[in-house]
């Protein structure tokens, strides 16, 4: 390892290092990812039960003719594509931040109890308050997510060392188990609630019109802004709390701010799409393997690559069982699980 050449390249601590050449420069990764995202988004608009030529799709997007039936089909698919983009980005960012702030490689909105909180709140909305519209669920799902986050954090904070990664995961799992059984109890006793709830519960991006998406945009925007700005803080936390605090970071404040971002993103995404598993778990690992340990890049790339997986899952789900559809929540798990296993087998799971 004689490489005095190291000095001639700038010794960059903060910029991602590429000295050993094994890693693709993150800028290039980002460009490629954006390209793939564009293709996936286009495919999501173009592919479906009704076959359309690429040219028709393109024309519909750039120069829509309201009288043209094909164009109408394309435009009707648009909200679904936008949902997948927004929800995917939200879950990718939230999963990355959750893993980083808890230093737990298995943290995701499902394991941390956030999805269960949202689900229980939605069931409450349906059963107790008779809410049946997605716009109505949003507030309940957000509140449920936030409450779940608070409970998990409070429970995990009991005891001497405070909220350690392991205790957070345990508290999340416990809350999930508790809420799930309560949820089952309600659903078993009320056929009507079950009928409404199951459409939300599977996790899907179809049938969400602009009326569902628009009210979510502010939540998603604020949440994404918070998390995209949290890269430096996550980099600090990844060295362990003591080192981070030694470097002058306010660890509790960082975590608190990020938790707000996570709750906004998870709550809004889950409200719109139902619980979508695996996305927030798999994507950060995939990105970390590609881009290295700098969270400023991991966050950005997660926000781009998570929608890719969600779009692909949605498109595949649309095509594999014609004329029916497999909901995207099931497809992400079907696609995500093998990816996750592959990641685990290829390299030891990142110790966070």
């Amino acid at each position, binding site marked *: 390892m004689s490489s005095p050449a190291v000095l001639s390249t700038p010794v960059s601590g903060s910029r991602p290092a590429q000295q050993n050449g094994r890693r693709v420069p993150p800028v290039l990764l980002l460009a490629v990812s954006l390209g793939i995202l564009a293709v996936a988004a286009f495919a999501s608009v173009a592919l479906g039960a009704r076959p359309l030529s690429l040219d028709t799709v393109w024309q519909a997007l750039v120069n829509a003719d309201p009288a043209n039936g094909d164009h109408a089909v394309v435009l009707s698919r648009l909200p679904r594509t936008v949902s997948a983009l927004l929800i995917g980005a939200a879950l990718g960012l939230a999963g990355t931040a959750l893993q980083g702030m808890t230093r737990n490689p298995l943290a995701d909105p499902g394991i941390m109890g956030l999805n269960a909180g949202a689900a229980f709140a939605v069931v409450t909305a349906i059963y107790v308050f008779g809410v049946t519209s997605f716009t109505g669920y949003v507030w309940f799902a957000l509140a449920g997510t936030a409450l779940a986050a608070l409970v998990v954090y409070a429970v995990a904070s009991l005891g001497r060392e405070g909220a350690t990664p392991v205790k957070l995961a345990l508290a999340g799992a416990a809350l999930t188990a508790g809420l799930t059984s309560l949820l089952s109890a309600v659903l078993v006793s009320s056929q009507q609630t079950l009928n409404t709830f199951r459409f939300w519960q599977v996790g899907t991006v179809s049938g969400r019109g602009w009326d569902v998406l628009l009210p979510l945009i502010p939540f998603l925007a604020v949440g994404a802004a918070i998390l995209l700005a949290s890269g430096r803080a996550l*980099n600090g936390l990844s*060295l362990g709390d003591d080192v981070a605090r030694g470097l002058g970071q306010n660890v509790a404040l960082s975590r608190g701010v990020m938790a707000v971002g996570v709750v906004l993103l998870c709550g809004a995404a889950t409200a719109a799409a139902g619980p979508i598993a695996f996305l927030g778990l798999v994507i950060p690992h995939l990105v970390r393997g590609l881009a290295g340990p*700098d969270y400023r890049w991991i966050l950005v790339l997660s926000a781009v690559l998570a929608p890719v997986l969600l779009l692909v899952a949605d498109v595949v789900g649309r095509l594999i069982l014609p004329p029916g559809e497999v909901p995207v929540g099931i497809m992400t798990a079907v696609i995500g699980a093998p990816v996750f296993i592959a990641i685990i087998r290829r390299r030891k799971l990142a110790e966070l």
Partner: protein
Amino acid sequence: MQNKLEARDLVLSYADRTVVDGLTVELPAGKITVIVGANACGKSTLLRGLARLLKPASGVVELNGRNINSMPSREVARTLGLLPQTPNAPDGITVADLVGRGRYPHQGWFRQWNADDDAAVAAALEATGTLELAGRDIDELSGGQRQRVWIAMALAQQTDILLLDEPTTFLDVTHQVEVLDLVTDLNRRAGTTVVIVLHDLNLAARYADHLIAMKGGCIAAQGAPADVVTEELVQDVFGLEAAVIPDPVSGTPMVVPVGRHHSRPAPAAKNPAVGYLPNPHDSRHEHHNPMEAAS
């Protein structure tokens, strides 16, 4: 005086268990201070308190005359660096990246990475002899190399005070000496005030300018190692019967444990293993002739 770090009537506790009990100490500026003591004597806790990682239950830690817990944490981080016992290296991080993370307190929203940071990182790598490792992954390094990289990270922070919590714990003896030599270099070259918690009493006595022996959350003795390390003190602080002789290399006090089994030196016997742990069923009256050291 610059870079003055001191604690007054410091009480540190976890939940309701008091670990450091009303301790007053001043860490000499520009010197190497080593804190020793038996397990659970509160030495690491004291270091955490001095590094403002643990809020005092009462009493105060002062950095240059100001209460360290009411100073902005980032401002403290530009004066006082800390290397905890088990820092966490993110998977796949390169040496240069990790050392660069030490620049955190010097950066901010409007103060991005610049030439100063590059220079600080390069200097830290050079000082710790890790420059040629700059592009390597942390996971590929040996324990000794890794510890030098962590010290480099603390150096990149460019602080006048450096606190190290058992920096030699998982290292073999060669690398223990290497790390302590390195820290001594830094102290001699840059005048950095160094505070180290160490397990090994002999290395502590050799490398300390100022030695603090702790027992039960209080200071049992402090001063120059030659004054502090005596057979009585080792008995008192560690509960260990030992002979104290001059270190043949440095002349500093050297502790030779007595133990129960090897106390009468046979003519051909080599030195008994240093650091032999007393048997739990130890009965202290049974030992025979403890080696009488030349004093």
